[in-house]
């Protein structure tokens, strides 16, 4: 019973904070991109535009909820729900702080600690792909179908390299549990032993969440908006939130696997975790404002012919160095 109450409280608190982060990610991205392009970004709603995400949310709720005539109705409604729910579930296994003592209870600052934490992350991240593909297909729109197919092919191609890039970290830590991986980094971050794996991970992660320079699935110039072209109102907002939730989680996982998680001197663990994650998130926004978009065949070539052999070589080299 105590476990149930503790779990419910933890889930609700973390979920609420995570949703707040996702909402303000949209503002952060628009602000930073604005500055990159020498303009202010949103600054009309509230001080520094701080109420903008809330205003956007309210607006999304009151917009007309349109379902096109030749859409597959049940799947069309279900697809954004799958995307956002699977993205929000990813937060469960990420440890964001050390244990604290509250009212005589020892509370670990994480929702749960699974023995198969990394597999859990990959499993739920893959479910999100279903939402994208089903959404594009159910729209009954050519752009939507093309965008969905591109998204699917790109995501599965980079998923290979992504899952290969973290194997080095698993070998060093000897565990799939994210808490254990963080504890093993108390003296030295994994990025020191696995610098190339970290770079590969970030590149693959950008492709996984369909961000520039890999944002082919929703290339505005040729596909209008890709898989979510027919979506309006809150359904579109759900796709959008799923994308930003994914971005936050990808950076949080990179922090956990490579940058020592919540470990750090002087400041409390939660703060360290947030700082490191924020730096990576900022990097993702920054590179969006800097890099042009790649062509689709270049993306597929890069994934299959360059990243896959390189990540495999990284695994082999790590294995040989560790065995000697």
């Amino acid at each position, binding site marked *: 019973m105590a476990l149930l109450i503790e779990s419910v409280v*933890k889930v609700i608190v973390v979920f609420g904070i995570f*949703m707040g982060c996702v909402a303000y990610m949209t503002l952060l991205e628009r602000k930073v991109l604005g500055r990159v392009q020498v303009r202010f970004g949103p600054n009309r709603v509230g001080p520094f535009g701080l109420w903008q995400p809330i205003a956007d949310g309210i607006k999304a*709720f009151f917009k007309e909820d*349109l379902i096109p005539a030749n859409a597959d109705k049940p799947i069309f409604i279900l697809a954004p*729900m799958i995307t956002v729910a699977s993205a929000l579930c990813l937060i469960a296994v990420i440890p964001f702080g050390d244990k604290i003592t509250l009212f005589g209870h020892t509370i670990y600052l994480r929702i749960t600690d699974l023995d198969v934490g990394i597999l859990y992350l990959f499993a739920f991240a893959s479910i999100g792909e279903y939402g994208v593909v089903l959404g594009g297909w159910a729209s009954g729109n050519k752009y939507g179908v093309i965008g969905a*197919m591109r998204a699917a092919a790109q995501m599965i191609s980079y998923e290979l390299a992504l899952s290969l890039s973290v194997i080095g970290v*698993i070998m060093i830590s000897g565990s799939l549990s994210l808490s254990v991986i963080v504890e093993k980094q108390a003296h030295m971050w994994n990025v020191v032993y696995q610098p190339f794996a970290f770079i590969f991970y970030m590149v693959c992660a950008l492709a996984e969440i369909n961000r520039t320079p890999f944002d082919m699935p929703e290339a505005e110039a040729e596909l209008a908006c890709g898989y979510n072209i027919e979506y309006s109102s809150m359904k579109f907002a759900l796709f959008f939130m799923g994308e930003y939730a994914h971005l936050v989680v990808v950076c949080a996982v990179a922090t956990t696997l490579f940058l020592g998680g919540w470990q750090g001197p002087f400041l409390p663990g939660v703060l360290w975790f947030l700082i490191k994650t924020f730096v990576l998130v900022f990097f993702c926004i920054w590179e969006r404002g800097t890099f042009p978009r790649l062509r689709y*065949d270049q993306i597929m*070539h890069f994934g299959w012919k360059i990243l896959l052999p390189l990540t495999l070589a990284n695994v082999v080299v790590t294995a040989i160095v560790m065995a000697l």
Partner: protein
Amino acid sequence: MLKAYLPVLILVLVAAGFAAFAVVASYLLGQHKPTRVKMAPYECGIASPGYGRTRIPLRYYTVAMLFLLFDLEVVFLYPWAVTFKKLGLFGLVEMMVFIGILLVGYIYVWKKGALEWD
């Protein structure tokens, strides 16, 4: 052991509940004034020719099949990586043979042109 999955179950319920709430609430709050033009597929502004679900190039299926093959082999690497330190040199040699076989398949696929996109 299974206790660790209780919070996951609660989180899945909360996330699914949020998604369902958002869709239902926007359905109830938003206006509904559908017209024939509004319900048409969104394209360049002219009436959309042909059927919405176009045929898809075969390459996408090839990529999906290749993904299945290679991803299964990557999944085999995970338990090996966890127990790598215990297995020692034996594990290393075994897995090098496995990766060698994987590489042969990879080179075959490359030579056959399954990775080309033009």
